[in-house]
């Protein structure tokens, strides 16, 4: 097993189901209440030393009990290794801890996740929509139940009959 994963498993006693290594990418899934603690460990521990935030992303799994998955990806400039940190969130209580206090760059990235998937971040300094307009009320575009052609006022348009020539 990857030494990074081993270390995390020993420190936090995460079940094997939460650890993954595929195509050289290392991923850890943690529970929501442990997220900030694990992130703090990844950031501060000298063996981990993940000082660089790569991206924050989210995946929608509509059929699962905990519908959303928030994904952070970190890199260590000094140690030159990568890790992916994942958290599952149920739809009814769509909140996770923000990691902006550890990585400043998480600010805009988490705002984008909020904008696109509707996941709220606790203790985020400025949680507003970022790509969609501030007054956008049609929902969250990257959710799987959001139709590709959009929804809202366009749905009320009638199909035009073919114009006779």
């Amino acid at each position: 097993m990857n030494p990074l994963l081993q270390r995390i498993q020993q420190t936090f006693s995460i079940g094997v189901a939460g650890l993954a290594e595929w195509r050289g990418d290392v991923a850890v899934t943690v529970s929501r209440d442990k997220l900030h603690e694990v992130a703090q460990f990844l950031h501060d521990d000298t063996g981990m030393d993940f000082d660089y935030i790569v991206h924050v992303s989210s995946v929608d799994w509509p059929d699962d009990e905990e519908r959303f998955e928030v994904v952070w990806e970190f890199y260590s400039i000094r140690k030159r290794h990568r890790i992916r940190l994942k958290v599952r969130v149920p739809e009814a209580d769509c909140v996770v801890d923000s990691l902006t206090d550890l990585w400043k760059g998480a600010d805009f990235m988490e705002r984008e996740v909020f904008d696109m998937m509707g996941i709220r971040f606790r203790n985020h300094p400025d949680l507003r929509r970022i790509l969609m307009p501030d007054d956008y009320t049609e929902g969250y575009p990257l959710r799987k139940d959001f139709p590709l052609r959009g929804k809202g006022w366009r749905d009320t348009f009638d199909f035009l009959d073919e114009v006779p020539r």
Partner: protein
Amino acid sequence: MAFEDQRTTVYKINPERPESETLPTLRTEELLLNMGPQHPSTHGVLKVILELEGERLVKSTPVMGYLHRGVEKLAEDGTYHQFIPHTDRLDYVCAMYNNFAYCRAVEKLLNLQVPERAEYLRTIVAEVQRIIGHQFWLSAQALDIGAMTVFFYCFRDREILLDWFDELCGARLTTSWYRIGGVERDLTPSLIDKLKQFLNYFPPKIDEYQVFLEKNRIWLGRTKGVAVISAEDAVGFGLSGPVLRGSGVDYDLRKYEPYSAYPKCEFSVPVGKNGDTYDRYWIRVMELYESVKIIRQCLEQMQEGPIMADVPSVTLPPKERVFTNLESMIQQFKLFSQGFDAPPGEIYCGTEAHKGELGFYIVSTGGGKPYRLKIRAPSFVHMGAFDHMARGYMISDACTIFGTYDVVMGECDR
């Protein structure tokens, strides 16, 4: 004289009353100023709300999304092959590198080996694209802060390379030349000749650009010590590419997570010291020389061979076979209508584009379409540091700070 007369009349409102009563008490307040979305130096449609104290920036809030086209949503609806043209429209100035980054990510997902000649071709074209990108940055950034001449010189040379692209793939900007598993077509002898000519022609021109800027006192004054960011902050914000290396952090994926033909080439990664706009300029100019070096080495080392991996379930058949051979036509049709069957799993693959780390995070559940595709766009991440970098500078420096990131809004808003 007339000017002074006017001033006296304005201030002496009522000469009979004592001065303290005539002058209103000075009132200070913060001024809100909208810069953009129609400002020429924002390189597209970006608005920044500037809070000003006098002429100093107190806080700046970027308002983005004017160019949001939902590319990530579109990706979920098409096959992997069909997404390549969409990547052209991310950073529309440097489409080749976007194609490259995306194809690499899909190849990582499929665990696909690309033939050696294709790797060299990819590296050559990617470095040509890097030259175009840096030329574009150099000209636009100098133009933003008033140095116009270098703009014309850069665009003159950029034109040569765009014509070269035109001959290579039939398009100057939206190229779509990379394919999953290889490249679309090989370099012809005429293209190789033209590229070699350019490599001899270009290095003296880089010196020329430098003379234009480094002897220009106004340009120096507006770039040295402007938009400084410390190494620690730059890392924390996730900056990448020349913006990060300008702060003295040695982070270049071409070197430290080598891909394509880069490990076979010798080149150095310039790293700055002060973290200001001038250092970032210096890095980009040095990278122009390095790109020339890399292309030279690739042209020398490149051997004959296939330009597309031979995995019929994934890679497209050569075009001439599609038109003459029934099986190849069926293969092409099936690949575009259904796509190939990608294994379930998730990968992240970052590529060092000229702006910074351009990454694709792909979640696959099997089947021909990505379940989720997230684009890690350097421009977007860089805009996150705008407020931090702009604090305390003058309004006129805001243009320099936009310029220093090399922001392209198509990539920022996706």
